[in-house]
């Protein structure tokens, strides 16, 4: 009797196994989570908690480079927009010379960097963007920012006329996902990568009419 039951059980197990092997799609979400969790370890400032995805990164990963459904993209952009903090003193423009230094600096946030504080971070801007004409070693993943302010008619960044483009630019730097849900650009303000002063210097680099960017 015992044996017979065992037989019946193994027959059932075989049946289940048979069905499982015919199952068209494994549970990839679970398998990916398992793979990521088992493949990385902490090193310096780069801890495994960095693998955790927020709603934005989860949705954009899943899209695999494709477009998100309109409603999903819209909701993510609205949520990103809400994270943006305008400068506390109402001033948006710093020193373009400091901005150029930050734009050139590609350091920050790797496991070989000592500190994750904003003052240890560069802007990494030239990695992806053309900015001044003098710097020929620029990347092409992002659009050219040469003449950024000039092309948008900014003659006085403090004027009421320039206000919309100034606020748009600040928002883009603070949280690039506010205008493009799966933008490839890091969220410099939202992610705590740059502080207000640094962001103002980058603003000056591309918006100040005196900056070489706008010559």
């Amino acid at each position: 009797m015992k044996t017979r039951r065992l037989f019946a059980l193994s027959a059932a197990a075989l049946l289940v196994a048979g069905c499982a092997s015919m199952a068209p799609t494994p549970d990839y979400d679970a398998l990916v989570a398992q793979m990521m969790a088992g493949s990385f370890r902490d090193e310096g400032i780069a801890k495994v908690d960095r693998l955790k995805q927020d709603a934005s990164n989860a949705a954009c990963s899943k899209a695999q480079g494709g477009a998100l459904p309109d409603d999903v993209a819209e909701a993510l952009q609205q949520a990103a927009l809400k994270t943006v903090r305008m400068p506390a003193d109402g001033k948006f423009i710093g020193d373009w010379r400091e901005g150029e230094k930050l734009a050139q600096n590609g350091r920050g946030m790797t496991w070989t960097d000592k500190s994750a504080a904003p003052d240890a971070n560069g802007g990494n801007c030239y990695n992806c963007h053309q900015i001044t004409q003098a710097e020929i070693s620029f990347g092409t993943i992002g659009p050219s920012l040469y003449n950024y302010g000039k092309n948008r008619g900014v003659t006085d960044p403090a004027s009421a006329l320039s206000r919309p483009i100034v606020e748009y630019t600040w928002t883009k730097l603070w949280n690039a996902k506010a205008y493009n849900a799966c933008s490839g650009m890091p969220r410099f303000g939202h992610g705590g990568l740059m502080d207000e002063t640094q962001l103002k210097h980058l603003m000056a680099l591309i918006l100040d009419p005196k900056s070489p960017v706008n010559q």
Partner: protein
Amino acid sequence: MKNILLIAALLTASGAAPAQPKSAADGIAEYRAMLADGNPADLFEAKGEDLWKKKRGPKNASLESCDLGKGPGVVKGAFVELPRWFADTGRVQDLESRLLTCMERLQGFDAAEIARTPFGKGEQVSMEAYAAWISAESRGLRFNLPQGHADERKTFELGKRAFFYRAGPYDFSCASCHGQPDKRIRLQDLPDLTKNPGDGIGFAAWPAYRVSSGEMWSMQRRLNDCFRQQRFPYPGFASDVTIALGVFMGVNAKGAESIAPALKR
């Protein structure tokens, strides 16, 4: 006479015309061509072949009967079919993880300990040499990873998801840099690894000797530095994610000619 002089002058001028300012990429290509005559990878290849045949490890055995996928001891052509599924481990393995298996089973080394060893130290130095020689034995051959086993297909799917996995302080994934054609970081051209980027490009160009650091880098080390720049935590040597990415890139590179071990700036 005057006319002849003028023509001569024009000819000289037009003859000089090709000396236009070279693009940075041209300059780099020229620099690589200059170096290619004496790729220091040769030295690593020779060392790898020597080590392969040498009796080593606690069991004092060579790797000559190691099965890299085409049968015990077959090295030629093995590299362009890796990563692949192995019956004896029941796993999909890339070159480095397969070498770990052989070093443990044949020679008695502790695979986990080698995997934990930093690049450029201890048995990781042997690993660089093996990778250089084994890849060189497939130089000129075309990538043709098997996808017949269900685990190989599953690993490709996992690799694709790993490739597009965005996270970390910069929201980067592999695709941030390698998901579109004709892009650069600074002046560095970036291969689009979501498809076959061409002969000797991307997956078909590693392992490689890096002139800037004077080191021989296997694909494992290449991926490790990608993850560093992606601002991710530290990937384990031969960890599942690295093998899955190898399958994704390798299958995408089907038909691409391997030039490994290549020469990089």
